[in-house]
């Protein structure tokens, strides 16, 4: 069994190597499937090429999570979402580059051997390379350049929506628990969602329909019963949409603004627009960073233990080394800077002295965010109920996905600014709500901008409908 795994892993690495060498521009993939799509496949996704983010387990290729610590690691199983894709006839196009373990927003936190991921969606004649965004940057770029019809990414605090916005495509973070996480390498379990990226809402819906299934291998994956409740609740949202615009998401120029023409168009089609107050949004960011880093510190504790991992882990070093020293060496050299930073921050948040003032405080802020969302929606949560549905509530929230267009290479902002972006994307993650970023034209610099729509839990279809409204505006 071992030898076959080794062979597989070598074949996979050869494929990855040859793809990188043969490609004249640095590509979005860390592994390209050498096989061509099968012409004989059947199913709703027959013949469709779909890229999967490199933190989603696929037994046909290494799953490195862009980390040296998992360099060449070939999972002995397929993630549930991968099984569903292939069963539906899809062709796995390749493994898409990402920020290490999902930590980052530009797809820059990668092993040094990985070439940068370019944003393929710039205006004609703009030769200055820009980032694709992150952490699912490879997935977004693969779709935008057309080598994949769709892609799976993961979204913990915006990692699908942000690159979708930068690359001018659609990126959907489903309601928490809709797509099984079994086989998806955890960053922060309570926030992680597998998401779908494609060029149109209709394509996203097709892929989502295939991978959004209950799964006995993931206890946080929504049950058939809960899905039925959600579908029934979502089907009751009919007629003109009531769209809320959170005042906290309005940032002053030069930050990206909601296009006025879009708002007018939506109003002309019968939707009503409402300013809503979401005071907890301001505290969402610190809450997110405490929770995400704490969970990451816990989840990433498993690496360096020796049961799986990179080949270099097995090499002996000179002299005596205890098991603990060995683990320390592997983790210190195996993780990149950003990951080490977040593990340390998360470890601190969980220490006895800091726990009450960091982790517990963050949990309480997370409840505030949930409460703000619950208060603003017209429909109650289909499973947990909660606040009585409000007639004056809205069906979806609308705001810019990103504060700016894709940054230029080398313009990678300092840590603080990289984090600031997250204020637009993390509240939906903390509340586990469906959120989609859909293209909304281009900014003055000619690069794409995207707008986000967020709905009640389980209302993914309502969010799709609203996003199709934005698409219709863009097409007219």
């Amino acid at each position, binding site marked *: 069994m*071992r030898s076959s795994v080794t062979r597989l892993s070598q074949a996979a690495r050869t494929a990855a190597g040859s793809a990188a060498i043969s490609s004249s521009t640095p590509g979005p993939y860390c592994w390209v499937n050498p096989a061509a799509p099968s012409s004989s496949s059947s199913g709703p996704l027959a013949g469709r090429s779909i890229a999967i983010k490199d933190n989603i387990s696929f037994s046909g290729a290494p799953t490195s999570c862009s980390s040296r610590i998992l360099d060449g*690691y070939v999972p002995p199983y397929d993630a549930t979402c991968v099984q569903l894709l292939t069963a539906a006839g899809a062709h796995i196009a390749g493994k898409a580059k990402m920020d290490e373990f999902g930590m980052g927003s530009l797809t820059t936190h990668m092993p040094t051997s990985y070439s940068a991921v370019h944003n393929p969606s710039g205006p004609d004649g703009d030769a200055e390379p820009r980032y694709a965004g992150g952490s699912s940057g490879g997935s977004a770029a693969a779709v935008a350049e057309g080598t994949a019809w769709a892609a799976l990414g993961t979204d913990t605090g915006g990692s699908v929506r942000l690159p979708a916005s930068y690359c001018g495509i659609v990126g959907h973070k489903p309601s928490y628990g809709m797509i099984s*996480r079994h086989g998806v390498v955890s960053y922060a379990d309570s926030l992680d969602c597998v998401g779908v990226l494609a060029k149109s809402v209709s394509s996203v819906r097709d892929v989502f329909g295939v991978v959004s299934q209950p799964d006995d291998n*993931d*206890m946080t994956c929504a049950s058939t019963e809960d899905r039925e409740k959600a579908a029934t609740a979502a089907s009751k949202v009919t007629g003109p949409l009531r769209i809320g615009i959170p005042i906290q998401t309005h940032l002053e120029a030069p930050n990206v603004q909601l296009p006025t023409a879009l708002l007018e168009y939506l109003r002309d089609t019968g939707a009503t627009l409402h300013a809503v107050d979401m005071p907890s949004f301001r505290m969402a960011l610190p809450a997110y960073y405490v929770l995400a880093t704490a969970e990451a510190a*816990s989840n990433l504790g*498993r690496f360096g233990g*020796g*049961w799986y991992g990179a080949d270099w882990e097995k090499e002996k070093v000179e002299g005596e080394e205890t098991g603990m020293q060995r683990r320390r060496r592997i983790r210190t050299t195996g993780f990149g800077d950003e990951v080490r930073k977040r593990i340390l921050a998360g470890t601190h948040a*969980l220490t006895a002295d800091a726990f009450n003032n960091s982790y517990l405080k963050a949990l309480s802020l997370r409840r505030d965010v949930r409460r703000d969302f619950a208060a603003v929606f017209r429909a109650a949560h289909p499973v947990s109920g909660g606040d009585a549905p409000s007639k004056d509530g809205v069906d979806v929230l609308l705001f810019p996905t990103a504060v700016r267009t894709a940054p230029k290479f080398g313009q990678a902002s300092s840590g603080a600014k990289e984090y600031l972006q997250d204020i637009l994307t993390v509240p939906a993650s903390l509340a586990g709500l469906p959120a989609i970023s859909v293209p909304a034209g281009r900014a003055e610099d000619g690069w794409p901008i995207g707008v986000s729509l967020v709905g009640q839990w389980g209302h993914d279809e309502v969010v799709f409908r609203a996003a199709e409204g934005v698409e219709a505006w863009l097409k007219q």
Partner: protein
Amino acid sequence: MASFLRTRIHVARSAGTSISAGPSRLRSPLFSRAASSSATTASSSEEGWELIIGLEIHAQIRTGSKLFSRAKTVYDEMPNTHVQLLDAAFPGTLPVIDPEAVRLALLTAMALNCNINPRSTFDRKHYFYHDIPPSYQITQHYNPIARNGTLRFEAGEPGVNRTFDVGIHQLQIEQDTAKSQTVASEVLVDLNRAGTGLMEIVTEPHMRSSDEAGAFVRKLQGLLRRVGSGDGDMEKGNLRVDANVSVRRPGQPFRTRCEVKNINSVRFLQQAIEAERKRHIEHYETQPGVPLRQETRGLNEMTGETYSLRSKEDAEDYRYMPDSNLPALAIAPAFLESLRTAVPELPWETVSRLTSTFGVDRRDVETLIGLDEYTGAGIAYFEAVVGNNAELGKKASNWVTHELLGRLTKNNKTWSPEVVPASLLGEIVSAVEGGKVTGTVGRSVLKHVVMTGDTSKDFETLVSELGLSASADDLRASCEAVIAKLPKEAEKIRQGNQKVVMRLVGEVMKMSKGAADAKRAKDMFFELLK
């Protein structure tokens, strides 16, 4: 999957080495540095000190599979052969709880009279060690499944000379670790045990002697087996005990306690408690005013002394955090009610019922319970033997525990409800006690059935087939034969010397090989020799 893993044992610096299959005692060194106190026998200085004991018990949940993976739980098998990807913490794997483990933990909690938490949750306890591949143990730190129970002890139970309750602080579900073993400079790890479900049962400090602590463990073992939630087998390590020990002057506040970890027999538990008692008293007697260091200690099983593992100051920060992969365990009230009716009669309840209803000896009830601690089949068998003749209870228990079990032992057979059907033994007991046949006849029938294994015939048939029936005609014929054989003695009886009749009765018994009824033979002689 297992074979895939087996080829990859290279934890720490141990590439490709095989792991010895023998049971290893977790982090329990054979030799330790000597404990500070010398072994002193109880002396007058030990008087006036009260011993305070609380226990923490880890009992593997008897489901046959691991708590969050579907790997089987095994003992003493080839290392790393019962390991699923989750047990080795492969990236992307997620825990899926076994509902049977929850059911058994709930039954146990009910038997311990605990309050059941309708919404318990799982947390992660973090530390880096080879025996814990994900670097955290899933446990119930913040919201355990049950709290506030009691286990009652009555004066007269083995090792107990007062009536008291041991409070159960809490019962929580958690994962067991892997086994790790240091061989020369290599650390070898066996994941077969990793992820096995445990119940951690924490008592209040309500025990006052090592005998009481031993009695608690034995009573809990019986409870676990009867409820079916655990084997409680300390030798196999599926029940392990930590003891918290301190001493104080009666009526005064508690003093510093020390915890002795991972004790794996009742004898060692009592040894550890005694060693700690002596050590604490000696400390307070020789260094009054100096507080004892709060420590975690181990037991050196060779010397019976304890030794320091770590002091409270270097206690690890486990960074407890809710486990987001596991939703809260919400227990539906209807399910809880149905479980309440499923709690069987517990061993000590059986003892008290049978001793008071039938006057059966405690020891005999314990023997009956011991026939099958898990199902109570021994008790059920005894009750079937008694049937509706409650007045035969004590005799029936003698027949089961002495005649039947003794006969089985002699013939090297083990008991089951089928070896001698309860209905047949019931017939034997009532025939003997009703005077229809002698005890000897009853025992002969029993012996025959045990030896032949033929359980198809009823009592009457067996008696006559074995030639053991003693009809009135047979008796008269026997008596006449004896009179003919012993004319002198017969004459004495005719002349009124009644004592001599026993000589004749003895002869009848000899002839009938014990089958005859002595009382009826005596009456017959008086009738014939009027």
